[in-house]
């Protein structure tokens, strides 16, 4: 069986018995796979760590390191945990089968293996692996590398932990009017370009986009990976976002289209970061007063007629390089006390 790239699948046959090893290798080669083989468990693990393998066919009864031990090692190995294994054995008794399945084997085939059955099981296994790889690729594409790595390392669990971080909200001004004035295809294209630019600016400064909401997005700096200077990074990202949107707007104007503008709000402090949702569908996000404040600041950019607004906690940690202007206290909805608001220079909306 070949995958979508047209490459034959790479299979590893592990069996100490030479007759079995040769026969299984032959059967699999006849099915169009690329096959390597190992004579015991220890050699097999060495090969698995050295070269890419799509599927392992594992004998149980072996000297040195037997199949059960190999399965145990694989389960505990972060890199090899997802390696699909089909056990081929002539060990008798249901207890062995149960033990293999419990240790993560995909399937258990009794030797001598029926070639038709073998082919069916292998194709099913490779298809499952292809889906799993595609899923990993999806996580990689849609979850940001930081979140994907965090997921790989600690696994998925709902619930959060307290972190200190900066949250950034950004949206396109007057998007509704804009969307009504042009074809939907053009709006989608506009959003795609805009998101590309924003992801670039945010990712370039160590931030992670946690939510995309139509014409707006939320990003966090300092989680899941802690950053000591998350306030400055968030503001630098915001400045670059404004600059990129300015360039993009001029390009649009040159093409006879209306330019676009964005507003950005940033707040810093403690928040809860983690996976929110259900076991089936969840996203990495941050929750807390700081997040609400960043969203309010973003909305307030329209009132204040400024590109970037930040709270006191963010401004405090910015240092010399960032001239800010105090706009005085603002009473936001849902806040008991007024909040000091600062406009960051070089952010006068393009």
């Amino acid at each position, binding site marked *: 069986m070949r995958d979508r790239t047209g490459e034959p699948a790479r299979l590893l046959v592990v069996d*100490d*018995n*030479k*007759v*079995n090893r*040769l*026969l299984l290798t*032959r*059967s699999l080669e*006849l099915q169009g796979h690329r096959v390597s083989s190992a004579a015991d468990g220890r050699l097999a693990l060495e090969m698995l760590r050295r070269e890419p393998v799509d599927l392992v066919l594992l004998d149980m*009864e072996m*000297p040195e390191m037997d199949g059960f031990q190999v399965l145990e090692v694989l389960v505990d190995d972060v890199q090899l945990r997802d390696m699909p294994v089909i056990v081929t054995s*002539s*060990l*008798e008794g249901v207890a062995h089968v149960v033990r293999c399945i419990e240790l993560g084997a995909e399937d258990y085939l009794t*030797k*001598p293996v029926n*070639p038709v059955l073998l082919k069916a099981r292998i194709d099913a296994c490779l298809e499952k692996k292809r889906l799993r790889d595609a899923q990993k690729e999806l996580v990689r594409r849609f979850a940001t590398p930081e979140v994907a790595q965090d997921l790989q390392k600690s696994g998925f669990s709902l619930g959060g932990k307290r972190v200190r971080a900066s949250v950034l909200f950004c949206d396109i001004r007057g998007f509704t009017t804009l969307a009504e004035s042009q074809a939907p295809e053009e709006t989608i294209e506009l959003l795609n370009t805009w998101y590309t630019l924003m992801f670039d600016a945010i990712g370039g400064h160590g931030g992670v986009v946690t939510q995309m909401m139509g014409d707006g997005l939320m990003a966090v700096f300092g989680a899941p990976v802690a950053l000591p200077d998350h306030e400055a990074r968030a503001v630098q990202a915001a400045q670059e976002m404004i600059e990129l949107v300015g360039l993009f707007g001029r390009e649009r104007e040159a093409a006879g289209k209306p330019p676009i503008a964005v507003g950005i709000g940033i707040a810093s402090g403690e928040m809860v970061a983690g996976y929110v949702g259900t076991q089936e569908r969840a996203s990495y996000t941050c929750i807390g007063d700081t997040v609400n404040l960043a969203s309010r600041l973003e909305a307030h950019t329209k009132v204040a007629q400024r590109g970037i607004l930040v709270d006191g906690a963010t401004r405090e940690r910015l240092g010399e390089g960032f001239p800010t202007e105090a706009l005085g206290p603002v009473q936001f909805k849902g806040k008991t006390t007024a909040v000091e608001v600062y406009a960051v220079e070089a952010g006068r909306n393009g």
Partner: protein
Amino acid sequence: MTASTIDRTTFDALREAAGAEFVVELVDTFAEEAPGMLAELRRALAANDAETFRRAAHSLKSNGSTFGATAFAAMARELELGGLASVAGRGDERLEALEGEYARVLAALKALRHA
């Protein structure tokens, strides 16, 4: 004698699936490997090493079934499942019987190569 030593249905299916030329190679490999496994059974019996005994019998059973050597595989299986304890006092006799059957299997397989 060939008929009873090697089950033709199994052997033909093997040849069908893997190719006649490859099966010739596979028989040669079995002829190279099996004496070592039989010797290991002998050594394990002498050393009272139950685990090695069981494993060697297991391998022979497995290879016997591959070629359709039904009687040979059944004898090896008895040794595997029964273990050293089951042959108590009659170990030599049992191994001689297995070795005898192996000689018949090998002769039959070599004859079948050209069939």
